[in-house]
């Protein structure tokens, strides 16, 4: 028994964190909000791919690193922490297995392919402007996934709360492949759920870090506002939520990596807890900042809006609780949440 990342996993995390600290400050998120296809955003992905991280889950024979979800989780936590405005979970986690099945794995590992997802085939896809390929279908790990080329497709923007969400309705994308293998479809879904959960952990930590720094420095009534018990307790509660979600995300990664039978259950648990934690952190962070949180000039809102977006994506917390309740044999009315 050992419940902790390995040195290799920590090293990979540190390299990725350093990359984002260097190349993905909040200004890059703001740039993406203005133009999601800005060349600087795509260049950012190339830097990431140069670490080999694009092919993290792809077989070494196809040029990937041949690693597993134990490595994926720390990488995606860093993606969340930086609020990277790129479809990284979709590309390196969701698409990895599908790409192998349709012969796109080498391209993906080489960093030449970015992927967006529309798993409900009706919902706008996030970050389609920075993607080359769209995966459609496979919601809940069931059904089949269609692989479409985005070149030449019409993208109609849908405005979202998250300015960097880059939501689009897509028409006219050419169907390239269909993948019906239930193992691959389920794996793609579970990895998406896991990836969103990991990003939410990173986002939560970033919001907490910003808030702790702010309340330690901001003075009112002659003292730092962080010395007030009301502020302390809100942030302590927020930290508790994150610190119990995080090992659960790690556990889900390990279960997927080991191919455990109940890996999907762990992924549900991880997403539900990480979503609720991120929403709690966002609320506490905004409240403890006060008015400055409410301006777009300050960075907090970038992370809060991304957190809300991801909390509602890949199955809401309520959706995952419904699924868990089913797995636990609890009878239902059958009118569970659909998203």
């Amino acid at each position, binding site marked *: 028994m050992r419940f902790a990342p390995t040195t290799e996993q920590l090293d990979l995390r540190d390299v990725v964190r350093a990359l984002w600290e260097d190349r993905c400050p909040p200004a890059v998120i703001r740039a993406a909000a203005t133009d999601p296809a800005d060349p600087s955003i795509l260049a950012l992905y190339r830097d990431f791919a140069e670490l080999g991280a694009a092919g993290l889950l792809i077989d070494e024979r196809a040029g990937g690193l041949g690693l597993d979800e134990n490595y994926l989780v720390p990488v995606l936590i860093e993606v969340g922490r930086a609020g990277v405005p790129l479809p990284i979970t979709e590309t390196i986690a969701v698409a990895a297995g599908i790409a192998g099945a349709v012969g796109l794995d080498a391209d993906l590992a080489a960093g030449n392919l970015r992927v967006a997802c529309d798993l409900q085939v009706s*919902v*706008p896809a996030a970050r389609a402007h920075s993607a080359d390929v769209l995966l459609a279908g496979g919601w809940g790990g069931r059904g089949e996934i269609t692989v479409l080329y985005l070149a030449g497709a019409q993208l109609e923007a*849908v*405005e*979202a*709360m*998250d*300015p960097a*969400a880059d*939501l689009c309705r897509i028409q006219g994308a050419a169907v390239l492949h269909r993948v019906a293998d239930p193992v691959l479809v389920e794996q793609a879904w579970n990895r998406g759920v896991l990836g969103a959960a990991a990003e939410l952990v990173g986002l939560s930590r970033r919001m907490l870090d910003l808030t702790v720094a702010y309340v330690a420095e901001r*003075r*009112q*009534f*002659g003292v730092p*506002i962080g010395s*007030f018990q*009301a*502020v302390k307790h809100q942030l302590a509660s927020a930290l508790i939520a994150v610190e119990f979600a995080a090992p659960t995300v790690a556990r889900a990664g390990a279960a997927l990596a080991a191919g455990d039978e109940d890996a999907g259950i762990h992924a549900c648990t991880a997403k539900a807890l990480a979503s609720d934690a991120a929403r709690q952190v966002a*609320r506490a962070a*905004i*409240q403890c900042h*006060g*008015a400055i*949180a*409410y*301006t*777009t*000039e300050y960075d907090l*809102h970038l992370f809060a809006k991304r957190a*809300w*977006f991801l909390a*509602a*994506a890949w199955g*809401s917390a*309520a959706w995952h609780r*419904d699924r868990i309740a089913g797995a636990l044999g609890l009878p239902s*009315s059958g*009118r*569970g*949440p*659909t*998203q």
Partner: protein
Amino acid sequence: MDVTDTEAERGFRAEARAWLTANVPTDPLPSGDTAEGFRAHLDWERRLFDAGWAVVSWPAAYGGRDASLWEWLIFEEEYYRAGAPQRVTQNGIFLLAPTLFEFGTREQQDTLLPRMAAGQDLWCQGWSEPGAGSDLAAIGSRAVRDEAAGGWRLTGQKTWTTRGAFCTHLFGLFRTDPAAGRHRGLTYFLLDLDSPGVTVRGFDRFDGDEGFAEVFLTDVFVPDSGVLGGVNEGWSVAMATTGSERGLTLRSPGRFLSAADRLVALGREHGGRLTDVVRDRIAGEWMKAQAYQNFTLAQVTDIVEKRSPGARSSLNKVFWSELDISLHETALELLGPAGQWEGPWSRGFQFSLAGPIYAGTNEIQRNIIAERVLGLPRR
């Protein structure tokens, strides 16, 4: 207990409803916190004024109808039920005006109130400064006496000034006696934003609208007629206004009853995918809106019968601001991923998050409740 309208109140309600039904724009106006939307809202405000609905509780001489508090509540209820536009003049009408009525000279009242009612003077609030938010008594902007010119010279910076970039006038506190203690030595000033030495910079709010401004003042001259209440008495004058802000005036029950009704309608509209979990939450939010109305009716009765609510208005502030958030959160939960798209509920959600922060943070309100309502010891 008598919770029915009198015959006169029924008539007032019918008249208000008829006018609103005939006049409320069918398409929502653009946000009043953008330059374009602000203009559209001003047109609306002037129509309200022309029909005598801008300031129903004010004296007729200032453009009102001498309406009772009950009638005011009825008007608000009808206003929100009709889905009428937000009041971009509210900082003047609901925050400054009560102070002018209580502390203003007759001349100040006669000059300023009719212009405010008519939407000619547009007032924004100059309380907060970069170093004085929750801790309002830390205000550092200064006013120095200019005896020769018969007035004061104001220097400093105000911030978080809602709609400041679109307004014409500012009311706020400035330090006139730097030697006095924190709450002392402040004076309440009224000034024209066109005065030389004033610079206004708008900046964006959370939801993307240019809803805030910073106001920089350098040696701005304000004549003695721009002092509201006594010199060095600004704190108590301002607290009366803050009391209004925290109390009834800003958040009438009509607003939350109407929001709860819209939430219920949303639930019915999405009935096919409404889970019992969200249904339970919607019912809970609807009940809280009822409770807010009931609490307010009791509070208005107290005011009408001269029992001051005092610190109990802090209960009000905490309750409506948290209700506003949970109501919107419930809507977003119902909408799922689509709740993240731009729309009235996602905008309303973002806006609601400011509620527990402005007009005295809910942390401060809970301190007030604990110390002044429950009588717990200060530290």
